[in-house]
């Protein structure tokens, strides 16, 4: 059994920090997470923001534990209100209970009734008054100090974190923040937490999912990226641009997504592993280009960071609703790879695997990350290095018989790169014969269709196609970011001595039929869990004939996160 057996259960602490835009909720959350990390915890910070660039509402949600944290819990132990403006816009994202505590500044007015209704305790700390007594004092730093004490975090760790996160804003800002945080920390209140800090481990990383996709891209060998800015994928590009340069590669900001997909195809034709990152609207524009890459067998990888759709949808919030376009979006018979990272940490491996699979199989790989992975910050154990023996098959010394699209036992044919004498060919979106000459003949079409299908269908993807854990006659199948909440539920059940099997799909296409059927053959109950409205995975698995007729669907659209308690109820209680 893997990491998930030690998945955070009740041994975690969850904090939500809310305020109007510009109040510093997200910075406060970043420092709190860092302080928890300095104390040796692992953790996760998600954020919720309205579409306004400035002046809307914002919230930072932090959860930490001695164990890996891969989702938010069912309710918050602590809610910190920097102010209560616009709170009604996201109160439903912040469930509380009678065990919760609300930290509030009397100057911000009474705690709104909709937050008090569950019977949470209230602790008042005069954030604003304390801050106004300090030169450049900010009330969010007072709140940070008070919060850190409630969370039982060490003052030294807090101070180190303030310096680490605010260090680039200058000495004055740091000094003022430290004074304010100490005032809040030393206010007359006491810790409300029973978690013991593990002490600082050496190898934890602090990383977002978007950065982790960037790391995976580089580990996979990506050295060219062309892309167009889009929420919530831009951070992948911003992280990659200066780092690609240092590794002898480059990033080109394209004029639109039609350009970016075709630019990476051009670069890959030149022999350089290439990738782009986008979100739903951009992916929609790229689809014609994906077909070109697929038919010309030019490897490319597209990281699609999903957001609420369709159309412009909810750009700043998460949803797993691009599975259908990823699998079925291309015209013609167009088999290709679709993968999804199962956690922020897994964004590293899944993206690396996608890039190297695309290179090895000379095809298109789509990676379905989402906003909740991409823009959340995690404290995790350092992702291990994985050496994969997957690389592009290149013909370095083509002879007179060289055929770019030759039929081979594994249906992958060696690619000749520009600059290689004797290997000249024209890559084409037109159907072609093995030599690459355009052809509309039935025999050539069938031959190449079979080639492009079987190079994927017959490939052994090994054990990484899914994370399979647990046993018994009940099973949850999930994919991508929903895996975190599913693993939490499984952890609860295993801790109670109940059995459940969970299958978290990392490789969605080509679907591993035989393996899935084998796993599902004696199941009495199968639940398919995903964050979208239509049940896209559920219908896909049915269409592919791997689900029993009795299988059930739990499909909940964004932007609300899929919470473990909801999954447990869908499973039919705790037993």
């Amino acid at each position, binding site marked *: 059994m893997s990491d998930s057996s030690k998945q955070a259960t009740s041994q975690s602490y969850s904090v939500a920090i809310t305020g109007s835009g510009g109040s510093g909720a997200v910075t406060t959350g970043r420092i709190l997470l860092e302080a928890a990390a300095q104390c040796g915890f692992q953790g996760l910070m998600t954020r919720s923001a309205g579409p306004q660039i400035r002046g809307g509402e914002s919230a930072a949600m932090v959860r930490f534990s001695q164990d890996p944290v891969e989702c938010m819990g069912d309710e918050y132990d602590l809610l910190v209100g920097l102010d209560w403006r616009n709170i009604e816009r996201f109160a439903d994202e912040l469930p509380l209970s009678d065990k919760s505590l609300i930290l509030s500044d009397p100057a911000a007015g009474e705690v709104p009734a909709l937050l008090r209704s569950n019977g949470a305790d209230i602790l008042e700390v005069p954030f604003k008054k304390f801050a106004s007594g300090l030169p450049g004092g900010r009330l969010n730093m007072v709140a940070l100090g008070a919060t850190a004490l409630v969370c039982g975090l060490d003052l030294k760790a807090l101070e180190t974190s303030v310096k680490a996160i605010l260090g680039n804003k200058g000495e004055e800002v740091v000094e003022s923040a430290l004074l304010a945080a100490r005032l809040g920390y030393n206010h007359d209140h006491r810790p409300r937490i029973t978690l013991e800090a593990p002490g600082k481990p050496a190898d934890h990383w602090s990383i977002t999912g978007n950065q982790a996709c960037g790391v995976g891209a580089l580990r996979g060998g990506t050295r060219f990226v062309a892309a167009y800015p889009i929420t919530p994928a831009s951070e992948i590009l911003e992280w990659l641009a200066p780092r690609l*340069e240092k590794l002898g590669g480059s990033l080109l900001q394209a004029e639109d997504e039609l*350009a970016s997909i075709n630019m990476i195809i*051009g670069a890959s*034709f030149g022999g350089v592993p290439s990738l782009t990152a986008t979100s739903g609207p951009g992916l929609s524009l790229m689809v014609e280009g994906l077909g070109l890459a697929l038919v010309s067998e030019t490897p490319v990888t597209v990281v699609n960071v999903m957001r609420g759709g369709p159309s412009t949808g909810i750009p700043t919030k998460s949803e797993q609703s691009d599975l259908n376009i990823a699998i079925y979006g291309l015209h013609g018979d167009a088999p290709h790879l679709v993968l999804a990272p199962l956690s922020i940490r897994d964004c590293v491996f899944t993206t690396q695997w996608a890039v190297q699979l695309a290179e090895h199989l000379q095809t298109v790989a789509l990676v379905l990350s989402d906003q909740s992975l991409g823009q959340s910050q995690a404290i995790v154990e350092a992702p291990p290095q994985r050496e994969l023996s997957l690389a592009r098959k290149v013909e370095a010394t083509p002879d007179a018989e060289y055929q770019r699209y030759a039929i081979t036992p594994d249906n992958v044919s060696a690619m000749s790169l*520009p600059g290689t004498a004797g290997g*000249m060919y*024209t890559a084409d979106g037109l159907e072609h014969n093995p030599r690459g000459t355009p052809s509309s003949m039935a025999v050539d079409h069938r031959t190449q269709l079979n080639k492009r299908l079987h190079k994927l269908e017959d490939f052994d993807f090994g054990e990484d196609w899914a994370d399979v854990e647990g046993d018994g006659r009940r099973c949850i199948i999930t994919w991508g970011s929903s895996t975190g909440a599913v693993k939490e539920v499984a952890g609860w059940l295993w801790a109670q001595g109940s059995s459940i099997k969970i299958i978290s799909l990392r490789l969605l296409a080509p679907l591993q039929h035989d393996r899935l059927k084998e796993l599902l053959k004696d199941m009495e109950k199968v639940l398919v869990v995903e964050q979208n409205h239509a049940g896209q995975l559920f219908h896909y698995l049915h269409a592919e004939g791997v689900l029993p007729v009795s299988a059930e669907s739990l499909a909940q659209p964004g932007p609300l996160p899929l919470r473990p308690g909801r999954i447990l109820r869908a499973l039919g209680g705790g037993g």
Partner: protein
Amino acid sequence: MTVPALKAKDYKSGIKAVWCPGCGHFAVLSALTKAMAHLGLVKEEVAVVSGIGCSSRLPAYIDTYGFHGIHGRALAAASGLKAARPDLTVIVAGGDGDGFSIGGNHFLHACRRNMNMAYIVMDNEVYGMTKGQASPTTLPDWSNSKMTPHGTGIPSFNPAAIALAAGAGFIARGFSGEPSELTRILVEAIEHSGFAFVQVLSGCVTYRPDQKLWKEEVHPSESDLPTDDPVKAAQIIQAGDGKATGVIYAKQFPVWQPENRMDSNLNTIEKEFLL
């Protein structure tokens, strides 16, 4: 070791062209291979990139590396290739619909990005492959298409003026009926450091038989060419009849190529995530 000089025919692949007998594009293919022979280009170090349309079939007919992509996106594919492989000579070929309509945005940005490549647009003022619809360079009163039976009613697009406004540093007009001048223009375009745009008037015998008159209408420019003054270039382009040939404008701008260096490694980069 001396390698025998290649002749124009050595740059032809021998694949039979899909073009109609009498199509202007044959002369463009021939002029391009002559230009390549004149420049002594090493075949495997050249990539010819195109989109979709009659003229975009050209890469298959040339014995270099070729990329026949999708409609309108030739410049994008070529820009990615050149960014990743600056050692290659990149030549882009296409038609007026591919370059100015569906690919119009890429045309603008390729002009201003100024990467080192030559872009040859075989302009016949019609969509030939889809059997004769109006293109952006078709005059508004041309009513021979069933799709626009009253003509398009909208003014045609002036490619040279747009290229100038978008920042191109090399703008020329050639004619398939003047192959030796065209060869000279293509040599200069390929040699130009930066983005070189060549509009080639290349008539369509099937859907635009009226273009047989180009033989009489096309003429060498009367201006003193080329100029490196964008104001003068604008005057020449705007005052002209669109049928004057020659290199209109040649000016050296900084060529864009992504910067890269090898001064780190991935292990070092990954250390930034350690607490």
